[in-house]
């Protein structure tokens, strides 16, 4: 019942290990972001700057395009994640709950965009976007990101939906619910942890995507944060302090967002539902 001391110790040792592994490079980034230029590259490395400085943050926030790109990134990532999730919820439900001819084929088809090397598709994709008149628009990037986020969302949601007992859906159908009603009133609420996980990961994927953004968003009105990071690099020089500061600005809000959302990972979602 109550956990023994030994297992608590074990849990904390593991937790500390995971935290260390995940945080170490991140802490290094943070330390670098408050170092002065000359402390960045030293032999041996300096652990903590003698004179921590917020200069890099000031530069990033007030002298670069990062704030504007942050907004663009928000719009595009929310758009792409929202759209992907919306479309994927239906697709995943179709795959999870129905049998139909060629299902395996369609399921693999969803992956196809990721099976072709980026290098191969980027040029024709550009042509496609141009044909649609979507180069340098939010919608263009949002659409292109479907190639990346849909496979993730469809495949993961399919497996989450499968773990919801079918009887619950049957009960709702008997209660007079339509298929869509079942999906939105029964299946989705019970898949909230899965939705959150997919949401966070799709969001972050698009948030950090570089190559497509670089190619399809050439105007600063739609450029995203990763391009902002690249802009701290000139031909033979990179403003590492600024890059690190900007990375912190990119990273921390999402981690905090996730911290607030992880509460929705509620265990035993389906407890008490069925017998068997």
């Amino acid at each position, binding site marked *: 019942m109550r956990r023994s001391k030994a297992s*608590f110790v074990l*849990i904390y040792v593991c*937790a500390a290990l*995971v935290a260390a592994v*995940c*945080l170490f*490079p*991140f802490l*290094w*980034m943070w330390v670098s972001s408050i170092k002065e230029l000359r402390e960045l590259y030293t*032999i041996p*490395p300096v652990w903590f700057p003698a004179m921590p400085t917020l200069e890099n943050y000031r530069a990033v926030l007030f002298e670069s395009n990062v704030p504007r790109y942050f907004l663009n990134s928000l719009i595009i990532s929310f758009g792409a994640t929202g759209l992907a999730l919306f*479309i994927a919820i*239906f*697709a995943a439900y*179709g*795959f999870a709950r*129905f049998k*139909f001819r060629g299902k*395996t084929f*369609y399921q*693999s088809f*969803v*992956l196809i965009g990721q*099976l*072709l*090397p*980026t290098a*191969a598709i980027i*040029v024709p994709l550009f042509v*496609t976007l141009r044909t649609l008149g979507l180069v340098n628009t939010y919608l263009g990037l949002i659409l292109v990101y*479907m*190639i990346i986020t*849909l*496979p993730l969302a*469809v*495949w*993961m949601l399919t*497996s989450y939906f*499968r*773990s919801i007992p079918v009887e619950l859906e049957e009960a709702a159908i008997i209660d007079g619910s339509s298929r869509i009603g079942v999906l939105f009133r029964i299946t989705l609420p019970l898949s909230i*942890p899965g939705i959150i*996980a*997919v949401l*966070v*990961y799709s969001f*972050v994927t698009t948030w950090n995507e570089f190559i497509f953004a670089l190619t399809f968003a050439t105007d600063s009105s739609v450029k995203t944060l*990763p391009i902002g990071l690249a802009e701290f690099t000139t031909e033979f020089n990179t403003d590492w302090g600024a890059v*690190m500061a900007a990375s912190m600005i990119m*990273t921390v809000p*999402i*981690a*905090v967002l*996730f*911290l607030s959302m992880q509460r929705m*990972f*509620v*265990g035993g979602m*389906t*407890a008490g539902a069925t017998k068997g």
Partner: protein
Amino acid sequence: MGRISPGLLFALPALIVLTMLIAYPVMYTGLLSVTDQQGNFVGIDNFQRVLGARTTPIAFTNTLWWVGGSVVLQVILGTATAILLNEKFPGRGILRSIAVIPWVVPGIVAALTWAWMFHTEFGIINYMLTAPGVIDEPIGWLTNPDTVMPAMIAINVWKLFPFVSIMVLAGLQSIPKDLYEAARVDGSNFLDETWHVTLPQVRPVIVAVTLLLVIWALNHITTIYAITRGGPANLTLITPIQIFRLAFESVQFNQAAALSVLFFAAVMVIVAIYIKVSSAREEKAL
């Protein structure tokens, strides 16, 4: 049946969006692979050229190592972490959001930070090892033929195992509690529970995650390209980087397309087999 199945109807929007985006690229790549720069049909010339290149088999073997190493470790570490994150202990919420950080850090920045930390001279890792005297000489993590690929894999694992943990964690939430209770009464300890209840129950999630990881690893460029560009001496050259180089460094789009087609075919076969096998097992066990 003349009627379109409701399942397909549900999937239709996704399929349409993807078709719209991907149809032209697929055709275009196919076409490029059998033509030359002037657009003349050249048959299988391009294929012969890329297959004849000495780097192709090297890249192929490296790709296998890279994908195998990355995915296996990601899945194992990620699942273990998920199980940890599902235990109740004070600070769990914080740890959960710490665990997403590697994924949140922009790929290029992460790669360069790791490269920096692994650097023979500047690197904090060597410093941490040499300062207390664990090793005498700094290790050339990224220059030693024995360590460079493992280092790349380690970075990739670091970047992506959080993906596995969060996805599996979400899957763990829908495991009925009474199964654990039954297992406990049946006399199982934590490991038995994990093996006989947790893992089988999240199997579908792990299957899906693994598939995605394989595809991502197969198509992953950022980490290696930013750090070693496939070097030294092609030790970390993987096929997608070879394609990337062909296309964007050498401007050999036709050869790049040919290699892409080959790569695509190989990957498609792997994926098809994987889906067939896993869904067959799913039908049986769910």
